[in-house]
């Protein structure tokens, strides 16, 4: 049920330093924006947990409800929703993303 998805998302983003809700998989992204986000984390050499919202029932609407954000991909770092592709790229360019990711990975050790 939809409440199960909300709970599942909550535990996923708390358990993993970086989570990407995307269309497709990191190997086979189904959309350019999702591919771009994967590219950023690959460039950083950071492990991330990817969820294919197209592959899992109820996830596509569930994640949009969870964050009150209308589009995919959606990126969480250290349990915090940071935004979509535009924001991820902007934060990567400014160096802010690297700092956030380092802190999140360190917190999980």
């Amino acid at each position, binding site marked *: 049920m939809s409440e199960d998805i909300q709970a599942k998302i909550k535990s996923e983003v708390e358990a993993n330093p970086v989570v990407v809700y995307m269309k497709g998989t990191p190997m086979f992204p189904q959309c350019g*924006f999702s591919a771009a986000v994967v590219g950023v984390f690959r460039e950083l050499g950071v492990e991330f947990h990817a969820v294919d919202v197209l592959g899992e029932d109820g996830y596509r609407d569930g994640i949009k409800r969870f964050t*009150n*954000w*209308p*589009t995919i991909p959606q990126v969480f770092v250290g349990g915090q*929703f*940071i*935004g*979509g*592709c*535009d*924001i991820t790229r*902007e*934060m990567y360019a400014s160096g802010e993303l690297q700092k956030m990711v380092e802190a999140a990975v360190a917190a999980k050790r």
Partner: protein
Amino acid sequence: MRMLTREIEERIESGIPGSRAAVRDLTGTGDHFEAVVVAEAFAGRPLVARHQMVYGLFPEELRTERIHALKLTTRTPGES
């Protein structure tokens, strides 16, 4: 059904008082847009909140994917 860049600009400028919006159609298909929005109202807000302010003006269009993509750049007048 296509949207026009002017429609999007007008919705943003009336939805965020004092803002200026410049919108481009990225693909010519009337559903992939880029918007640069400058507003004092963004001051002190993180990127995710700024983007939410703009996305929040188009709930139906985004839900139905009449707007399929809306790439955002959000700045205050003082930011480069």
